[in-house]
């Protein structure tokens, strides 16, 4: 797989994430809605995507991005 796993968070998941990090949506890293992977998973502006990457040091690493 060339692109790591991307998935759109549900509304509840997104709220829980922002609550646990104590941040506003805008403080997350961004991904463009026009990004091929965003189109592929059907992410829309305002959604939060969860990215699961293979990492040589951490095994699995999880990151989130706000779709803009």
């Amino acid at each position, binding site marked *: 797989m060339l692109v790591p796993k991307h998935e759109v968070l549900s509304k509840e998941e997104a709220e829980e994430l922002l609550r646990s*990090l104590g941040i*506003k949506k805008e*403080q997350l*890293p961004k991904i463009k809605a026009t990004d091929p992977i965003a189109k592929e998973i059907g992410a829309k502006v305002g959604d939060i995507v969860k990215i699961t990457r293979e*990492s040589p*040091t*951490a095994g699995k*690493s999880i990151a989130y991005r706000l779709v803009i």
Partner: protein
Amino acid sequence: MIPKRISAIKFEVLSPQEIRRMSVGKIITPETYDDDGFPIEAGLMDPRLGVIDPGLRCKTCGGKAGECPGHFGHIELVAPVIHVGYAKLIAKILNAICRECGRILLKDEKRDKFIEEIEKRKKLGQDYEDVVKEVFRITKAVKKCPHCGEEQIEIKFEKPTFYYEGEHRLTPRDVRERLEKIPNEDVLAFGMDYKAVRPEWMVITVLPVPPVTVRPSIILESGQRSEDDLTHKLVDIIRINQRFMENKEAGAPQLILEDLWELLQYHVTTYLDNEVSGIPPARHRSGRPLKTLAQRLKGKEGRFRGSLSGKRVNFSARTVISPDPNLSINEVGVPQVIAEELTVPLFVTEKNIEIAREFVLRTEHPKANYVIRDDGKRIRVLDANREEIADMLEPGWIVERQLMDGDIVLFNRQPSLHRMSIMAHYVRVLPYKTFRLNPAVCPPYNADFDGDEMNLHVPQSLEAQAEAKVLMAVQEHILSPRFGGPIIGGIHDHISGLYLLTRGIKKFTKEEVMSILKPLSIEELPEPKEDGYWTGKQIFSCILPDITIEFKAEICQGCEECKKEKCEYDAYVIIRNGELISGTIDEKAVGAFKGIIIDEITRKYGNEEAKKFIDDMTQLAIRAIMNAGFSFGIDDEDIPEEAINQIREVIANAEREVERLIEAYKEGNLEPMPGRSLEETLEMRIMRELGKARDQAGKIAGRFLGMDNSAVIMAVSGARGSMLNLTQMAACIGQQSVRGERIKRGYTYTNRTLSHFKPGDLGAKARGFVKSSYKEGLSPIEYFFHAMGGREGLVDTAVRTSQSGYLQRRLINALQDLKVEYDGTVREQTSGMLVQFRYGEDGIDAMKSFRGKAVDVKRIVAEVLNKE
């Protein structure tokens, strides 16, 4: 008081009205002071512009020197001039507007689309530069005005401030008139806010005169007044302006007026920036170029990099460094003279007032230099007032006592590239004039003693002192966050010394043992192992804490199957319960960067114990090397006739082989390697052949030098130098290269490197193979090729350091306000933006890692097994 905060900064261009409005007066005479030394009214030193002389009061605000911020004046220019800083932009705008009606060369709908895009990007905080660029690109190509139908002529810009429409030169007045005609709505399409910047304001008609506080005059020792460069330049401007006006009023010929106008443009241009290409810089009478406005801001010594990002500090010292192995790694030797100048504040309380009084009363070294009263007044302690001050001393005062043994200071060596470049040391006041440090802390500072200088800073508050001790002390940095291993450890003689001490079984008499262990605080000697004699391994074990490890030493030859404790090179180190059983101690065991023993002690017993080990180890090593005796000289490279002959033969064979390859190539018998051309194949095979020959020559030399040779000892133990260095000294220097290839540059036309070779000669000699050794000396031709290779190396380092320095600065600026929060995320401090969800993906503190790995399973297993 509620502290005021700057929420935003907006940059605008000053309009002529604004300049007049903020001005306290028109400046008209170039004279500064009259014969009595009083500033002339309406001159450049007009008292309304502010005060710099203490005692006088400002005519505008009434403030004293220091209180009055200074006030602007202005000069009315007889004719407008171009502002160099905007010259390029003016050229772009001139090409984007109609020469007749001044409208932008775009239809209104199109223009509005661009404005909309710019507004959208501004709102999102994005760059809109490329939109503006597109506007200029499109409008420049338009030949006919879409509004009035006028034909357009392209305007050519000539540096620094000239504009030509075809052959016709546009005067700044023409330029200004055109810019004035642009309607506000069109200005928006250039990415400008017409309220902040009207294009015509970029052509100067009124020049602000900065306050005298910005350009103070200095009084020389001779009592003469010397004016600031800016004042000099302003004098020039006023003088020309005046002459221009007189000539104009007298109705002088157009030619003369034009000359004066150009001169005025020159002076205003150099006043703004004296390093503009295309015109000679304005110079001082002495020939020194003047430092005008742009020069004050630009570059390393400029306002930004020199005054804002970097400042000079008090309570600091700088001098040459030199080694002192008798100091602990966390100490620094401070020269007496420096210790008497630097001070530490002693905050007087009821509890310490007697101590403070004692310092005040002292007349020798740790005495008080200054006393600060509770009202903040600083009093120098002198013989005359010493007793009086001691009497008056009371809680709340501060006594600034001289630096003394045991004080904590920060020690720094530039370039400060990593956190270990500034560490906290404890002071030891010593005679002479250099800072002294234990050579074991050279690696983190990357210091040597060939003239290096270092800086020292004295923390001035108890908080700072505590932080220095807890966070910055040398022992806190034994393990480096760069690679999760020790960065402080033995170097050079420490390694040679321990190698000599621990290699094989060396016997020492009680006397020798006592003399080697003398500097250490060892109370009991172990039982002698070798009938009445102690072994070197036993001596080394004396400084080891209780650790158990096994590893291959640096000298390990990499045998196919390791024989472990039975290794014939004594290269397998076994330490059991703090006793060295077998193996030789070398770089791998105690060296900086490698030091497995240091690593182990730090992890098992902590930094304090590791510090003690390094202190003991360095002392022991130096005693050991002195006991054994160790020297190195030019005849250490002497090899017997036999060896020389063997080396000659190896090289002659290689040269013959090269000739054979060239012959084969010329006859077309050379088989190309896969994916390579014939020429590349030949080059590669020749390089390989000659490389092999050098390695063989090195092996021969190494064999004849033997393991007892000092240079060999240093090379194999990792103390200093390599076998390659040795090969080059004793046997053969080998192929010289430029850009990784054999040398081929030189006389390109005849394809030869030097004129005494045959054209197209591909032989070893003609392409930079040096068969001599450094000891033998190089032939002139070899020397020349060697210089070519050497030059490339020097250029590379010079380029690399400047590039990596710039990269470092940019990285630091980009990363400086990122912080790892308690939840393990990395966030930007001001905006709270999330940068990493887990620090470095794995949340590992590299400093606490095992050479980059989070857990060292092998170590845990070994530890558990050992306990059972």
